C-alpha cells in the first residue's frame, strides 16, 4: 500500500500477489515523478526501489536529462514503536521485581508476627529490593535515552531550532550507550542505518529550494516554529509530526 503523506491520499492498495522487489518495482513505476520513499527496512521494498531506479535509467532516451533516483528514508514510526515495545517490557519486569520485593517484605512481617526468627527473610527482602531498585534505575536511564532518541527523530529540537543530521546523530550516539542487551538489537540496527535520518536532509533540501536566502530562511522557520508553539498552546495544532 502507498500513501501520499502531504494529502494523506491512499494512492495504492493492492492485494498481493507477493512482496518481492519486482512487484514493488511494478507498483512504483506508476509514479514517474517520485523522488522519495518512506518505508520500513524491508528488503523487498528496498529492492523494489533499486529496480525502479534501474528501470528509470534504462528508459532514458539518448540526450534526455537523467532522472534523479528515488531516495529511501526509514519510517521512524517503526523505530519508535519498537523502542516503546522494549521500554514497556522493561517496565513490566521492574513491576514484577517490585512485587516480588513487596511479597518478601510481607514474609518478613509475617515471620515477626508469629515470633519466628525473621533474619533470613529480611536478608532475602533486602536482596529483592536491591534488585528491584537497580532495575528501576536502569529503566529510568533507558527512558531518558529513549526520550533523547525521540527528540533526535523529530523535525524540531527541544530548543526550537530545526533538527539536522549532525545534531540528531550526536543524540542517537549518546543515547545508544544506555541501550544495551539483545532486546535493543532491532532498534540499534534501525538507528545505525543512515536512511533513518534521511527525512532531516530532505527537509533542509526542500527548505533551501523554497527559500534560497539563508537569513530569510532561518527567520521564516523561526516564525513558523513560534506560531506552531503558540497554536499548540491554544490547542489548535497537533504536535509537529515525525515522518
Amino acid at each position, binding site marked *: 500500500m*502507498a500513501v501520499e*503523506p502531504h494529502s494523506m491520499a491512499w494512492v495504492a492498495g493492492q*492485494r498481493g500477489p507477493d512482496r518481492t522487489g519486482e512487484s514493488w518495482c511494478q507498483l512504483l513505476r506508476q509514479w514517474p515523478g517520485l523522488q522519495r520513499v518512506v518505508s520500513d527496512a524491508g528488503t523487498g521494498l528496498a529492492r523494489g526501489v533499486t529496480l525502479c531506479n534501474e528501470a528509470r535509467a534504462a528508459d532514458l532516451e539518448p540526450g534526455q536529462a537523467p532522472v534523479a533516483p528515488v531516495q529511501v528514508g526509514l519510517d521512524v514510526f517503526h523505530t519508535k514503536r519498537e523502542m516503546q515495545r522494549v521500554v514497556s517490557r522493561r517496565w513490566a519486569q521492574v513491576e514484577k521485581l517490585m512485587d516480588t520485593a513487596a511479597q518478601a517484605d510481607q514474609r518478613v512481617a509475617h515471620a515477626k508476627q508469629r515470633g519466628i526468627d525473621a533474619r533470613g527473610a529480611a536478608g532475602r527482602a533486602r536482596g529483592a529490593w536491591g534488585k528491584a531498585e537497580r532495575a528501576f534505575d536502569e529503566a529510568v536511564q533507558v527512558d531518558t535515552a529513549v526520550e533523547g532518541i525521540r527528540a533526535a527523530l523529530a523535525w524540531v529540537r527541544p530548543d526550537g531550532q530545526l533538527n539536522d543530521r549532525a545534531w540528531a546523530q550526536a543524540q542517537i550516539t549518546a543515547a545508544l550507550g544506555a541501550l544495551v542487551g539483545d532486546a535493543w538489537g532491532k532498534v540499534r540496527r534501525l538507528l545505525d542505518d543512515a536512511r533513518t535520518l534521511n527525512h532531516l536532509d530532505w527537509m533542509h533540501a526542500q527548505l533551501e529550494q523554497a527559500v534560497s536566502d539563508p537569513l530569510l530562511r532561518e527567520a521564516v522557520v523561526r516564525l513558523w516554529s513560534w506560531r506552531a508553539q503558540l497554536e499548540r498552546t491554544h490547542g489548535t495544532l497537533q504536535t509537529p509530526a515525525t515522518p
Partner: protein
Amino acid sequence: MFSLLVVTWIGNAATVLSGRWGAISQRAREVGCSREAMYQQAQRVEQAVAWEQAGGPRRAELLAENQRLHDDNRMLWALLDEAGTISQALQQQFAATAAAMGLSLTQIVRLLALLVPQRGVPSRATVGRWVEHASRRARGILAVVDQVCQTWVLTLCLDEIFFHQEPV
C-alpha cells in the same frame, strides 16, 4: 404494618447503637431477624436521621422534581420527533463520507442514531447499500483522478499490511 416495621427498625438501630454486650443477639431473637440485618437497619436509620438533620430537600420534593424532569424529557423527545429531520440525501452523503474516512457500517449507524429520530435510523444493510452505491459512482472519477495525480506524487509512504494473511 409499615409503621410497625419502622418502629422495629428504630428499635433495632437503638439496640445496635447502644453497644451493650449481648443486647443485639437478644434483640435479634426477639424480633426474629439476623444480627447482620440489624446492623444494616441501624446504618440505614442513622443515614436517614443524618439526611434529615442536614436540611436537604425532602423526599416528596425530590419525587416531584423527578416527575417534572420526566415530563420535560418526554416533551423534548416529542419536539425532536416533530422537528425537521435530516434528509435522506444528507444521510447518504454522511454515510459515504464516514465510510471514506474509514468508519465501519456499525459505527456509521451509531452516529446517525445521534442525529436522526429513533424510528428514522437506517439499518446497517441500508447504509451498506448507500456506501456501495457511492463507491460505484466514485470509481469512475477515481480512475481519472489517479491518472492525473500520478505525475504530481513526489513522496510516498510505503508499507505492507496483511488482510486475511494476504499482503496489501
